[in-house]
């Protein structure tokens, strides 16, 4: 009995602790922990950060310092709390980018600069915070002169991207840069392939063959380099998709309230019915007249 009670109590305790601690279990990789912002936090970055925070984070986290966060389990902490502020900039950036527990990721919603601006806003509530010196993060594409060109190789039937940097007037290929290839869709970009540049600075993409294109099969492709402070973007329009002929939903005669949309069988059977009733009525009237005639001639 005693043992049972202890067992139940410990299980309940375990459930409570795991359910509320759920989000804390996600670990941040050590290299991400040490990441620093690519710019110094200024009143301008804090102000833009505040706007981004109010639009994207406030609904759950409330106003920093006021502890008016949404009542969720686990609770979305107040960003101004010491518990929150003890995270390094890199940890905050990682969580903001990848999400944690109930918190969604913001990797597609906010670009890198915007995410850092949010962090600068959150740090403005910490009086003892001092921004760590900006590290050179060893990014591959740093120079303003780097260029990416997206093209289609007709013999290989593949899309490829070339990244070069101009060094002393010469174009030098940049190897080992990861490029993501997207297809433009109505509300966002669909990731279709990822590749890294080789020694020649060229990356070939294996694009899936079953992506719906426009009525001629054209796809609008966008290549982006990832994880760099200078994001290279290149676009290409190429006949790589499946030819899509959008079906008109109004082609089917499916609803009954207007003639032009009513199914043909319905119109025909309705007309048959109406005409049939009409003929029957006329027939009955004729028969009645006949009876009357016979009756008249008999008397």
């Amino acid at each position, binding site marked *: 009995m005693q043992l049972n009670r202890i067992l139940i109590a410990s299980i309940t305790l375990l459930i409570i602790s795991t359910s509320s601690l759920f989000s804390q279990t996600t670990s941040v990789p050590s290299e991400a922990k040490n990441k620093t912002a690519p710019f110094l936090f200024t009143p301008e970055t804090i102000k833009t950060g505040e706007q981004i925070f109010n639009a994207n984070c406030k609904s759950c986290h409330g106003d920093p310092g006021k502890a008016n966060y949404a009542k969720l389990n686990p609770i979305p902490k107040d960003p101004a709390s010491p518990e929150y502020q003890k995270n390094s900039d890199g940890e905050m950036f990682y969580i903001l980018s990848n999400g944690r527990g109930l918190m969604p*990721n913001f990797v597609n919603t906010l670009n890198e600069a915007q995410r850092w601006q949010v962090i600068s806003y959150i740090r403005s509530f910490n009086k003892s915070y001092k921004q760590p010196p900006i590290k050179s993060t060893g990014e591959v594409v740093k120079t303003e002169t780097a260029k990416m060109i997206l093209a289609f190789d007709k013999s290989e039937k593949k899309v490829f991207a070339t990244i070069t940097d101009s060094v002393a007037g010469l174009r030098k290929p940049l190897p080992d840069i990861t490029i993501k290839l997207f297809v433009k869709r109505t509300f966002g970009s669909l990731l279709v392939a990822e590749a890294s540049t080789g020694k020649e600075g060229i990356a070939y993409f294996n694009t899936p063959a079953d992506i719906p294109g426009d009525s001629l099969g054209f796809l609008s492709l966008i290549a982006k380099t990832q994880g760099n402070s200078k994001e290279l973007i290149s676009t290409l329009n190429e006949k790589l998709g499946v030819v899509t002929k959008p079906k008109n939903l109004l082609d089917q005669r499916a609803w009954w309230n207007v003639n032009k949309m009513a199914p043909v069988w319905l119109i025909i059977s309705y007309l048959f019915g109406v005409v049939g009733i009409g003929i029957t009525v006329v027939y009955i009237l004729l028969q009645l007249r006949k009876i009357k005639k016979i009756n008249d001639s008999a008397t």
Partner: protein
Amino acid sequence: MEDESKNPKPKSRREFVKNIGLIGLGGIALGSSLYAAKHFEEKKRGQNVKLLTADGKLVEVDLLDVKQLDVDRLTNNQERGRKGIPGKSWVMVVDLSKCRNARKCIDACQSAHHLRPEQYHINTLQMKDTDRTPAYHMPKPCQHCDNPPCVSVCPVDATFKRSDGPVLIDNERCIGCRFCIAACPYSARSFNWFEPKDAEKDKDLVYDVELNVPQKKGTITKCCFSADRLRINQLPYCVSACPNGVYYFGDENEDAITNGTTKETVRLSKLLSDNGAYQLMEELGTKPRVFYLPPKNRLFPFSDNTENEKKS
């Protein structure tokens, strides 16, 4: 007396004169009415109409100025609202495993469509499929069926299906018969029993079919798939308001669908097949445009936070 009765001539002359008079009067009435009808449109300018302004002043405005502007814009809106966006076929996916009843979708929807708090175009329902399975929250908008029973029963062609998917309603045509409410198996429609919330504020607004604003007493109101936002290439109000990534929205023809919270775009066919998506009451043959992903691997326990939300 006898002479007169025997001789029909004087009587017929009197009759003739009487008839002429009648024909003449009738002719004049007909002619003048035709003339008035013909010149009605041209004669409108200069005719003033008395109007009460919002601040209680009585003003006179030229009838022509008042009517032409509004009618033109109204017909424009009505015509545009009936035309689908070419080549598009909108679908929505609701991921039940992520919904924790934040009700932000409902707030965004009600403020966009100027709805009273008890009117829902989208609502989160508490579901419990069996005694053994845990409860979950299910947002339920209009399913925008490809074979909509509500459209079939409308006697005045007020509600209609559009070529890009949405089922909309034109309140300028709606007679408030509520057949569509009876026909809809998803209870997606509601009736404006009272004066709408913003009746005073929206007085001067020109009715927009795609937004269904201003709402009108005695007509139906329903989810529009945010057709006004789709026209400007933006995600619907509810989809972009969700803080938990519940909603995906996109074009079926592109086979891509975008999450309203994370803005991540994924393949529609893959999302549906990987997660075992289902539709509501598919067996009725309504062909809904809203898909549901089952409430598996949920990150939170079920809690009935509806009351808390209302209090706060």
